[in-house]
């Protein structure tokens, strides 16, 4: 860094030893700063006579180096490449991708059910009643898990035995859902959802300006508060307190009383949703009468695609309103689809079913994954098989079987579905791992620093 006085005199020391090779390269890449060969010794000696002090990466010192001097030792020394790279392992990646698989499968199952209803192969009432029954079962299951979690919190040491017991309790419910008749088994899985998502579905539907408008806004607030307290095992009744997730707070009065209270509220809210839907169905039925059918298909396709792409796959158990855009899109799609159905009964059934599939089932899946990994895998497999089977049954030729169910094509669909799912998860995981070698994240002192602030809540609490 020359000063006005010494820069002119110091520059001639650079010439003479300039060794310029003749090969055509117009740029030095950033790496060349590292890999370039060390300076010839001869010039080092001649330099050391003239320059006593080494170059420093400072601007306030007057240095006898030109402005474009690049110090080979320190240039880009703070460059970091891929500083936080965590290499993926294959099997954990596959395991994690089952979350996406599950969601896609449940969307497929919904579509299959709609087509079944639309083609009048399945009675809408049976779909709804089976799915509602499964939802009820799922709710009981969920209640049990929650109480186990409480017990574990309280007992601690005896957690193992509790888990063992719960495992045995869990299976019958699940087995019951497996033994159902095939077209209904398709929707049995999505419908096993806990009530915790009821408010989320409800509040999402409030945003759905098209159709479902809840007249009692007060009731939704109370739902939200109860859901929140159910999650947090505390009885704070204000909506604000319930939004904050406070699992560490001890329940103010006995757990059992608390729980039965919650159950009552949940049943109440479920009844409320049921009745509102019943009332709204006639309106929904004529909603898209003036729209042509192909635009309905296109619209619902895009809406369901939105649901899949914007779904919150990473959300944990505590997520309050997971991915409202995704849920809204799905519910809108189902509303639009339901409006093409012939009777009020159909419309009501499909809408209720969609709430169970898109509102409650994701939450239930999250809990399943949280509480039991084995069960999660089992449900993934069942979902894949169910989706494949459903698609096969729908695409199969009914005339060949004389009006009955084309079981053969259903089985083929199931096999193909399992194959596709396996290939897709394995292939995509393998591909992602393969792509990691192209990752080149550059970090250095020019990046904005991430401030570490500890006492942020300090002045929030003091007030």
């Amino acid at each position, binding site marked *: 860094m020359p000063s006005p006085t010494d820069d002119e005199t110091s520059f001639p020391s650079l010439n003479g030893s300039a060794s310029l090779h003749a090969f055509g390269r117009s740029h030095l890449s950033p790496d060349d700063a590292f890999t370039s060969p060390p300076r010839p010794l001869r010039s080092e000696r001649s330099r050391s006579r003239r320059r006593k002090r080494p170059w420093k990466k400072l601007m306030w010192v007057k240095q006898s180096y030109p402005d474009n001097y690049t110090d080979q030792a320190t240039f880009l020394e703070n460059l970091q490449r891929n500083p936080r790279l965590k290499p993926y392992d294959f099997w954990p990646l596959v395991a994690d991708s089952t979350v996406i698989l599950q969601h896609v499968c449940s969307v497929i199952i919904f579509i299959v059910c709609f087509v079944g209803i639309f083609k009048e192969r399945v009675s809408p009432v049976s779909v709804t009643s089976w799915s509602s029954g499964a939802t009820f079962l799922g709710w009981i299951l969920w209640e049990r898990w929650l109480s186990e979690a409480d017990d574990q919190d309280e007992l601690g040491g005896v957690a193992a035995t509790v888990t063992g017991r719960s495992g045995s309790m869990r299976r019958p419910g699940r087995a019951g859902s497996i033994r159902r008749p095939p077209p209904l088994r398709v929707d049995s899985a999505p419908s096993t959802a806990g009530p915790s998502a009821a408010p989320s579905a409800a509040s999402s539907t409030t945003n759905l300006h098209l159709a479902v408008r809840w007249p009692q806004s007060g009731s939704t607030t109370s739902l939200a508060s109860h859901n929140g307290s159910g999650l947090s095992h505390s009885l704070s009744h204000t909506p604000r307190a319930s939004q904050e997730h406070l699992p560490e707070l001890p329940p103010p009065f006995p757990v059992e009383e608390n729980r039965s209270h919650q159950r009552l509220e949940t049943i109440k809210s479920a009844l409320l949703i049921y009745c509102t839907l019943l009332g709204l169905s006639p309106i929904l039925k004529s909603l898209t009468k003036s729209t042509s059918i192909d635009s309905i298909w296109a619209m619902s396709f895009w809406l369901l695609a939105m649901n899949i792409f914007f779904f919150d796959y990473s959300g944990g158990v505590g997520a309050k309103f997971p991915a409202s855009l995704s849920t809204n899109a799905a519910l809108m799609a189902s509303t639009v689809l339901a409006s093409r159905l012939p009777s009020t009964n159909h419309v009501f059934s499909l809408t209720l079913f969609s709430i169970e599939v898109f509102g409650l089932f994701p939450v239930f899946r999250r809990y399943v994954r949280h509480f039991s990994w084995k069960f999660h895998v089992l449900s993934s497999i069942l979902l894949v098989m169910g989706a494949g089977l459903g698609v096969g049954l729908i695409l199969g030729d009914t005339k060949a079987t004389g009006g009955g169910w084309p079981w053969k094509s259903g089985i083929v669909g199931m096999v193909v579905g399992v194959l596709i799912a396996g290939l897709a998860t394995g292939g995509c995981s393998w591909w992602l791992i393969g792509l990691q070698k192209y990752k080149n994240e550059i970090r250095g002192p020019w990046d904005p620093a991430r401030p*570490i602030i500890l006492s942020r809540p300090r002045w929030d609490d003091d007030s």
Partner: protein
Amino acid sequence: MTRRTYNIAMVSDFFFPQPGGIESHIYQLATKLIDRGHKVIIITHAYDDRKGIRYLTNGLKVYHVPFFVIYRATTFPTVLSCFPILRNIFIRERIEIVHGHGSLSSLCHEGILHGRTMGLRTVFTDHSLFGFADAASILTNKLLKFILSDVDHSICVSHTCKENTVLRASLDPLMVSVIPNAVVADNFRPKDQPATSPPGPNFALDAPHYPPPQRFGPRDIITIVVISRLFYNKGTDLLIAAIPRVLENHPNTRFIIAGSGPKAIDLEQMIETNVLQDRVEMLGPVRHEEVRDVMVRGHIYLHPSLTEAFGTVIVEAASCGLYVVCTQVGGIPEVLPSHMTTFSKPEEDDVVLATGKAITAMRAGKIRTEKFHDQVKKMYSWQNVALRTERVYDGISGTIPEDDFYGLDPGGYNGSRIRNFTLIDRLKRYYGCGIWAGKLFCLVVVVDYLFFLFLEWWFPRENIDICHDWPYKRLVDDDADADSKKGAHSNRSSTSQGGTKLE
């Protein structure tokens, strides 16, 4: 034998009346280059009613070209639409060197591209740091790579900035110079110092005119000044977290905060919650001229920024005789010597600790802040910046021999770093920008060249009037010794003819 002078066009979207760092950099550099005998014009876009040609102090000519402004005073990035008017200006003013400023300024990029097509030498000054991760940065970096592929030389304001630019645009490090910003030290005097600077070119550190070192009793108030826009990347969150703790640990201290921004509300909330109204004073936005008056009210300057290419404000603070506490980010560690600063990591605890250390040191009387002004004055001056920029101009225009300018290259580089104007060589340089981008850039350059040929035919060069230069009184050359070193090839009139021809 006179020193060679150049006709230089500074091209940037950012210029007065808009305030800011780049703006004042361009202005100061231009005036100092004019003082050294060069002819400098500034090309920027029109600000509101400020259109056409304006003259600033010392005959600095500013073209406010009416381009369409899209976002934050940046013109819409059309590739070719500026070419006719830029060509007209370049020919009118007999420009030899196009000097663009600011990597977010599309006008600067277009000026450099068209300047190269017209066969002019180009220099680019980068004032900011960019990351590599987010989409906006990736796009900007690609654009920068395009423009800088063919630029003759780049200038960065700090070594960190140089590393950043070299990485972003894949440049040859030797073709990037580091020339820092500077401050007008006389505008940032300490409180007690008279307006006229003390006579004598060099004064010893213990010169008699210094005021005695400030002594702080235990009850004396120490004032900490913060002047920054209150944005996230200026570290306002750190400031908000640190202020209550500093004030708690150190009674008899107070804060003065100047600046505005979206984080101001958080700051006010912090003041109210901790009931610090009498110890933290918020001044709101201050004009650049008033910064000094705010600074001299304090003893310590706290700069909690998260990213900073140079950090002119800490130099200004030191020049005002303030002890500086700053975060160790970006180019900041290069800027000031350690006896003027305390560095901290960008962590709340460390900021509190560093501020505490600074307060203790001030109280103990260990810091001779009264000497800071003269030291800073010797470190940074715009004359020096102009001199060093002039050397860059000399280097790219061949006044300094290439070997002399680029020196020893240990990287094993091929022949010439002097960028010639042959179209095929330019295309070769652009082609290396990327698999797809390279071809696209080549296409753009070819179209630009054809457009240039069209303009040459449609608006012939002979029909463009050459404007008169400002009638300067030439300053007495006080750097005659520097002149004798340079082989001054030509005087101004001869160089101006050569500059507008394609080689």
